């Protein structure tokens, strides 16, 4: 990002008292030397000055008396169901043990442990014949295709999840490259899912399905920086532990590949 663009962000942060001291010095230094930024700063301050002069209505007491009367007429009866009573009692019981803000973290932790358990269990302790069943040339290709699909999806997803809002251009998050790659992958997902279903690979099929949903979300991001969309993808990826599932999927995929390579080597000998 160019220096002037960065400085423009600093100007705004400084105006709202959110810029740290070291950057304030850098901002002042830059403004002394850059004529364009000086003009930009003047324009910005004039805009804010205009907005500061905006006034809100001061309403009299009669208005507020009428306000309550109108509100009271609209108030519905408060619900007091059995479930609410039970929930309230449970909340009170567990309140001392779980400080504010910890409940979602604990729930998130529990979900991660549960998902890890399921994946590890399926990957290492289920019937190996089911997982390792197709090792012919066709299925070997399938594993390579799936592996590439997962790897490319992972790269796209990491690009989105790890966007650094502090250093990247916050005026226009541009994910056009990731979007075009996502579209390509979405087109590949359907045949891949069918092939995985035919080869009885439910875990990999499920992984491809989940990735397809995320890739669709990425492909459909609005142009010019769809912050809400990006946040939705980030939170979705976090809550689904998708990156961990990808890693486990890769682990699973590496085993048949190794085996198929071994078979190829034996055949060549």
């Amino acid at each position, binding site marked *: 990002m160019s220096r002037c663009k960065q400085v423009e*962000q600093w100007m*705004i*942060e400084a105006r*709202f008292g*959110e810029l740290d001291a070291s950057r304030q010095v850098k901002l002042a230094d830059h403004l002394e030397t850059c004529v364009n930024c000086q003009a930009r700063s003047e*324009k*910005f301050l*004039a*805009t804010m000055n*205009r*907005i500061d*002069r*905006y*006034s*809100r*209505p*001061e*309403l009299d007491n009669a208005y*507020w008396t009428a*306000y*309550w009367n*109108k*509100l*009271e007429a*609209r*108030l*519905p*009866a*408060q*619900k*007091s169901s059995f479930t*609410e009573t039970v929930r*309230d009692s449970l909340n009170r019981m567990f309140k001392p043990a779980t400080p*504010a803000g910890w409940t979602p973290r604990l729930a998130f932790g529990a979900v991660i442990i549960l998902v890890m358990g399921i994946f590890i269990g399926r990957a290492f302790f289920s019937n190996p014949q089911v997982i390792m069943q197709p090792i012919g040339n066709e299925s070997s290709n399938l594993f390579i295709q799936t592996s590439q699909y997962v790897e490319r999806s992972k790269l796209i997803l990491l690009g989105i999840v790890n966007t*650094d*809002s*502090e250093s990247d251009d*916050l*005026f226009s*998050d541009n994910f056009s490259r990731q979007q075009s790659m996502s579209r390509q992958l979405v087109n590949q997902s359907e045949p891949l899912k069918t092939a995985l279903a035919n080869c009885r690979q439910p875990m990999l099929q499920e992984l491809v399905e989940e990735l397809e949903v995320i890739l669709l979300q990425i492909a459909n991001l609005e142009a010019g*920086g769809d*912050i*809400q969309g*990006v*946040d939705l993808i*980030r939170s979705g990826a976090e809550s689904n532990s998708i990156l961990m599932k990808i890693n486990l999927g890769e682990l699973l995929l590496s085993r048949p590949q190794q085996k198929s390579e071994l078979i190829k080597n034996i055949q060549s000998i």
Partner: protein
Amino acid sequence: MTQEQQWIQQAQTGDTEAFRHLVECYQKLVFKFCYDLTGNIHDSEDLSQEVFIKMWRNLKSFRSEAKMSSWLYRITMNAWIDRSRKKNIRVHADKAELKDETLQKAAISSGSDWNPETQTESIMLNQEVQTALNALTPRERAVFTLRHYEDLKLQTIGEQLGLTTGSVKSLLFRAVRKLQDALSPVLKEQLS
């Protein structure tokens, strides 16, 4: 226990009188925020009343250690964003609003040295800013209003909106850019 906490406890049991005291404490704060979001008195009244109805309905889930004003900001923002999504409303500060008596009252109250000229100027200025604010998306407007008019920190706004601080910053920057673009003809005129 503070008086407010007592009212909250009583209101949680369905006591409307205690709830009235709570509404009286926060009605101006909520209304002001609603006015910044909607830009007119009629919609502000409707939105703020919706907020208090939601507050009444969900008061049982309110934890006494939380800050009531933060909770109300959150309810207001969600209600505003929901409304904007459903109705896709963009408040239009058109010329008809110049005749709005309440806006004129606002203009009168804002100027200490009242005279017809300053009154008209104030109305025009409010209209210009309103038009500029209407160019923002609901989220941009909520972030800008909370930072600029309500003086909440970016981190707090992020917590309220369920966004990262970086995203809030980004929304604020975009809001400022749009406001600059919308107000630039006025500013140019002023300078010339």
